[in-house]
């Protein structure tokens, strides 16, 4: 991201809205690694993520009914909350069991508990953010998103609990051995050596840690964010900047790939 980037008035207004509306984590939970509070403007900050200015559409009838029920009081609201929780729990369980084959046994045994926790947390988030619902999707899709983000984050962290994240120099100094197969030609090995050297010389210590963990070792950003007391968004920006620096370094050596140029 270009720190000196000039934002259009529309982009500034959009980012201001984002700052207020996109905090998906629970109150007091910023920094836990879920999609959290925005520390920086969006990476592609010349325009909103959709590429077009937002015009609030008319709500569909079902979404209107959900909003009305959740904004009611007394038994009507209680009933809506119970039904919303059931919907969130269904979504969380669905996602948890969809990912079951890729999860280690201890996590797979806890899916129902994790799904219930996710539904509870998602319900709390949604009830605090009803005014953020823009109506450009179905309400149920918007609500599902909270359940998915919650259960997904819990599954990742549970799966990586107790596992050591290794940032040792060895991890990247052996890059050619790790990524190159026996049939790779000399040019492939040259590319890997150049990447290894760029990691060593072009990145800050934090960029190096994040790049190695996420891009080379497959550590989920949520997990890394929890260990580093950061957020997914903040660490993604570190990764984004590291990747850009490495690509530039390789291009300078004639080892870049044919590609579209970044617009910023």
């Amino acid at each position, binding site marked *: 991201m270009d720190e000196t980037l000039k934002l259009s008035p529309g982009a500034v207004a959009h980012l201001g809205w*984002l700052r207020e*509306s*996109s905090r*998906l984590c629970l109150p007091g939970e910023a920094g836990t690694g879920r999609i*959290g509070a*925005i520390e*920086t403007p*969006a*990476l*592609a900050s010349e*325009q*909103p*993520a*959709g590429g*077009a200015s937002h015009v609030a559409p008319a709500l569909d009838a079902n979404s209107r009914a*959900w909003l*009305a*029920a959740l904004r009611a009081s007394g038994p*009507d609201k209680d*009933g*809506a909350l119970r*039904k*919303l929780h059931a919907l969130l729990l*269904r*979504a969380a369980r*669905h*996602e948890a069991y*969809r*990912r079951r084959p890729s999860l280690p046994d201890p996590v797979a045994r806890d899916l129902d508990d994790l799904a219930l926790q996710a539904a509870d947390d998602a319900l709390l988030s949604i009830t605090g953010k009803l005014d953020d619902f823009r109506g*450009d*999707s*179905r309400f149920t*899709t*918007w609500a*599902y*998103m909270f359940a*998915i*983000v919650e259960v*997904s984050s819990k599954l990742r962290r549970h799966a990586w609990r107790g596992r050591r994240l290794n940032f040792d120099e060895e991890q990247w100094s052996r890059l050619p051995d790790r*990524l*190159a197969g026996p049939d790779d030609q000399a040019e*492939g090995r040259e*590319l*890997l050596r150049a990447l290894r050297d760029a990691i060593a010389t072009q990145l800050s210590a934090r960029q190096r840690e994040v790049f190695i963990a996420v*891009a080379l070792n497959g550590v*989920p*950003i*949520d997990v890394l964010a929890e260990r580093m007391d950061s957020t*997914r*968004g903040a660490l*993604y*920006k570190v*990764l*984004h900047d590291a*990747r850009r620096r490495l*690509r530039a370094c390789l291009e300078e050596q004639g080892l870049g790939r044919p590609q*579209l*140029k*970044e*617009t910023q």
Partner: protein
Amino acid sequence: MNVRDSVDRALGPVAPDAGCESAAVNFAQYADGAVAGEDVSRAFPHVANHLAACPDCNQDYEGLVNCVRELAVSSEDTPPPPEH
């Protein structure tokens, strides 16, 4: 996967990127559009680019789309009628 592919994958796509928070704001609309068969990557190129670059967001988005597709309209999709 050869070396070039491995390196390209590690370095991610080169494209304007929405970032996690900005992309997440559009996930629900993006998912509804995708399930409806719309060309969402054209309508939301920065979100599409981010999904290609961020493994966590991509996994969440896949889960959301799957959820929308698989959990078809049921009685739970509608709020209870008012009691009075």
